[in-house]
């Protein structure tokens, strides 16, 4: 009698345990699959949300690309400490990912404060504290994007972008070219030196055209591949050619030849 009761109790308890276990695994599976789907959706959304307009310019010292997005706390302390109201914090559907600081050069460019208050304010290191000279900032690169409409390309001396450049004659130079239309004048071509341009956007703000001919773009400068060696630079660095000067080959003439 007692035995059967024990057995009964045991089978009861195992019967009540099995559905509970099944329920647990079902719950876990449901949770995991829901989370998986949400994760997939999030990743898809995030990969489009992380893209920013190339004209949405980052504050000085910003880490490059995704590194910045991963480091930025979205606290807006850089925005608050910007004395010229250049920086703003992106909202949803702005040209930069929501919550990250950016500026529109055509509206309010970076005034290149010497004490760089935005970098000093950053608590997370998304704006690199190692940046101590604002001239070393690389917020973007100015690009003269429309040669057809730029007044200097018409032979006029607008020069406004060149004049307002905080690094005049370093970041923007005027390169002379022959004016083939008149045949006797020069064109003074504004030329961005991408190794000196900070991307502050003063030129873009100042351009007199209705739609600016010079624009600051994020990461607009090209990069020379590692394998390129510019012969003249190598020669200067080395104090002479890296390959032997042209070999003097013995001139072999046919015997009894009197040719010179």
């Amino acid at each position: 009698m007692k035995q059967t009761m024990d057995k009964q109790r045991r089978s009861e308890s195992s019967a009540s345990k099995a559905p509970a276990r099944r329920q647990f695994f079902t719950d876990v599976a449901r949770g995991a699959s829901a989370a998986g789907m949400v994760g997939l959706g999030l990743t898809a959304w995030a990969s489009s949300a992380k893209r920013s307009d190339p004209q949405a310019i980052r504050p000085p010292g910003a880490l490059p690309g995704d590194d910045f997005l991963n480091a930025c706390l979205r606290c807006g302390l850089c925005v608050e400490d910007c004395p010229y109201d250049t920086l703003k914090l992106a909202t949803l559907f702005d040209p930069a990912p929501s919550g990250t600081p950016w500026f529109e050069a055509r509206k309010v460019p970076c005034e290149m404060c010497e004490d760089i208050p935005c970098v000093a304010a950053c608590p997370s290191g998304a704006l690199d504290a190692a940046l101590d000279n604002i001239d070393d900032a690389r917020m973007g690169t100015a690009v003269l994007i429309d040669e057809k409409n730029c007044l200097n390309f018409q032979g006029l001396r607008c020069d406004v972008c060149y004049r307002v450049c905080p690094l005049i004659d370093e970041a923007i130079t005027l390169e002379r070219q022959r004016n083939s239309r008149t045949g006797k004048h020069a064109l003074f071509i504004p030329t961005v030196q991408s190794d000196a341009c900070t991307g502050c956007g003063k030129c873009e703000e100042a351009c007199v055209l209705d739609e600016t001919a010079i624009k600051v773009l994020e990461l607009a400068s090209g990069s020379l591949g590692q394998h390129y060696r510019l012969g003249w630079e190598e020669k200067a660095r080395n104090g002479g050619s890296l390959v032997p000067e042209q070999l003097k080959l013995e001139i072999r003439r046919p015997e009894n030849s009197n040719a010179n």
Partner: protein
Amino acid sequence: MPTERQAYSRVGSEAAAQLGWWHAHRFLLLRRFSQLSILALFAASFWYGLDILKGNLSSSTVLNTLPLSDPFVLAQLIASGHWPAQTALLGGVIVLLFYMLVGGRSYCSWVCPVNIVTDAASWLRRRLGISKTTKISSSLRYWLLGLSLLLPIAGGLLIWELVNPVSLLQRGLIFGLGSGWVLIAMIFLLDLLISQRAWCSHLCPMGAFYGLVGKLSVIRINARHRERCDDCMDCYKVCPEPQILKPVLKGAANGVSPIIFASDCTNCSRCIDVCAESVFEINTRFTTEVENKK
């Protein structure tokens, strides 16, 4: 008795009648004051340069000296492979210690502005008598928390902060919301029409994170006078996490402590407000003068 209760058809009206209007709304109003004044201080710093509290809830400085940072955002930063600078880390530790003391999810009910939105949805739901709700597993938030910390490790990209509605709203209310209200309206409608307390009590990974932070926190709600409970159900109706109430209210026979140790509790204290019998109190987890020790 039932006829008497009919007279108090609205949640908390019995408490208001017996204990006074202020008594029945004090914690609700204190919470709103706390939530709004934090936002107002941030906004005053941004718009008028009054630097008492500067930045936003993700990271800030108090009087331009003491740093504060959201440990959940910091955890995501670290997961995505960026080791934050010292200021942010120090700020994170300060905030973490604070919530370990006062209860992790106190963040949800005393600070987070989304709470105002979801409380409004919940209130409107009650007023309109919408009882239909789609059941969402309340453990989904822990899965989302896992995702928000694992996806950055897997993909090297801080994904959750690109979409986090909590960050979006608190930031938007200070710096300008732009089109962000769309997302907030979605949360409101989700809570109102689709699923009761869907966001704060089922989905939000930030709430899940702070819940874990406050697992061992000191400040706790205590159903100290549970023997007075007359089953009016008002606390169940206002509680954002009603599943935590039954064990403490009805657990006396099973030796369950009247202190709410569940980490889901947001310490919102609305149960204290609406209880006409004054069953609940704010105590510490070490409060011992109770009939059944844990």
